[in-house]
């Protein structure tokens, strides 16, 4: 059984999260720059007194596929390393994965990740 973990984190926390995951032997991940907002909402910019609200804030999205048995450990590690305690720290989602295939060798399932 494979699970995919998607984490939305603050961009400056990416290195911390990556190191923390390396420590527990996570060997790969996919990272993208994304924009969005949740409870943090956007922020205001003021140009000569004109206030503009910037709705979407830059975030990093991390995607990792692991064996179901490791999900709890990985989620905890991400939560700890991405934590600042301030609003906007992000979210972690866990999704079921149907299948995984390694392109080079055609291995499938847990051997492919």
């Amino acid at each position, binding site marked *: 059984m494979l699970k995919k973990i998607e984490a939305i984190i603050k961009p400056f926390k990416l290195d911390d999260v990556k190191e923390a995951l390396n420590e527990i032997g996570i060997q790969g991940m996919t990272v993208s720059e994304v924009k969005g907002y949740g409870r943090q909402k956007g922020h205001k*910019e*003021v*140009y*000569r*007194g*004109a206030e*503009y*609200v*910037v709705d979407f804030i830059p975030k990093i999205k991390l995607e990792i596929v692991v064996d179901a048995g490791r999900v709890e450990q990985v989620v905890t590690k991400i939560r700890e390393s991405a934590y600042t305690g301030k609003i906007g720290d992000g979210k972690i989602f866990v999704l079921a994965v149907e299948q995984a295939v390694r392109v080079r060798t055609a291995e499938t399932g847990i051997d492919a990740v």
Partner: protein
Amino acid sequence: MKRIRLMTVTMLLALPLSPAWAADGLNSGDTAWMIVSTALVMMMTPAGLALFYGGMSRYKNLLNTLAMTFVAYCLTSVVWVLWGYSLAFGPDVGGIIGGLDFIFLSGITPASLEGTIPTNVFALFQMTFACITVALVLGSIVDRMKFSSWIVFTVLWVTCIYTPIAHWVWGKGWMATMGALDFAGGTVVHINAGVAGLVLCRVLGKRIGYGKEAMFPSSIALTALGAALLWFGWFGFNAGSALVADGLAGSAFLVTNTSAAAAALAWMFTEWVVTRKPTVLGIASGVVAGLVAITPAAGFVGVGASILIGLAAGCLGFFAVSRLKHKLGYDDSLDAFGVHGMCGTLGALATGLFADPAINAAGTGLFFGNPKQLLVQIVSILATAGFTAIGTLVLVYVTKALTGGLRVGEENEITGLDGAVHGERAFELE
């Protein structure tokens, strides 16, 4: 050998000071300085103002803003040598306008002199002022005016509005006779451009989405660079307005820099307190506010007054663009009125207060025992603002009739004028 060399150096140093050379006639020191000053002021329009305004306009209209600035400079350059110079500086006709004697610069030869410099240099120096004045106006109307309308408006406005006012103040017209003090263009350039911009933006109407959608400046970095170039060029503008290379030019040079710096700090700290962030746009705007305010006063006030003028200009500019404009509800896109109109008025009044006869015998302000000067300044401000408001309004409707409307189509305004008008884009971002 050594002694001979020393003597030669001493003689060379003494040359410009000798009475025989100081008499009327061409002075090479003055001429060199005025050629440099003219080049400095030239740079203010297609480099300084273009970047200052371009960086503040939206990314989709950056090139259109540069294009309008460039053509304002080019058109005025041609108009000036054809008839503009003659209308402003030709022989006085009733204190109102110059005669047509110098049309096409006729009768002016390389040997012609204005004071101690060639008339050609004087004419070109004055031309750069006309260029930047009309270009300043476009700050009120970027993002929405038709390019063809801007071209027609520029030619009409320089001819009918700029040249008479320049004549009144600098061409031995009625304001000069009355004793109005305007060293480098507080009324002629800044009040004039600011009020004209206000009139033009009221007739054009607000930009689509103004007050509802975010209108981000394309690049504050370009605006900051533009402000720095304006500051650099302004040394030619103000110190050059002495028209000679002397102590008064040096004094104007000093107070110009001091006022700009004080105003930048005043704007920055005011903004920091009021809206919590010391913005780069605020610092750059403060520089320009301080330069505008010291312009009429540059050759009349001392360094203490220049600090006060700068501090006042920084605060006034900030409140004019961030409070007054939103309260009154007009869409002066880049604040030509808020910065140039308001701070120009401040400077013209301050000249009436702080003009120090120890700096320049030609001007004595209220604080040095001449309360009448303040009254003269108020009259010159009201006359300039009134004439340019009414005259510009007329020209705006003439332009509208000639070019079939003043505003770009709605679709072009939304997609952006760089692509719609010029078929280009400022940056390749993808």
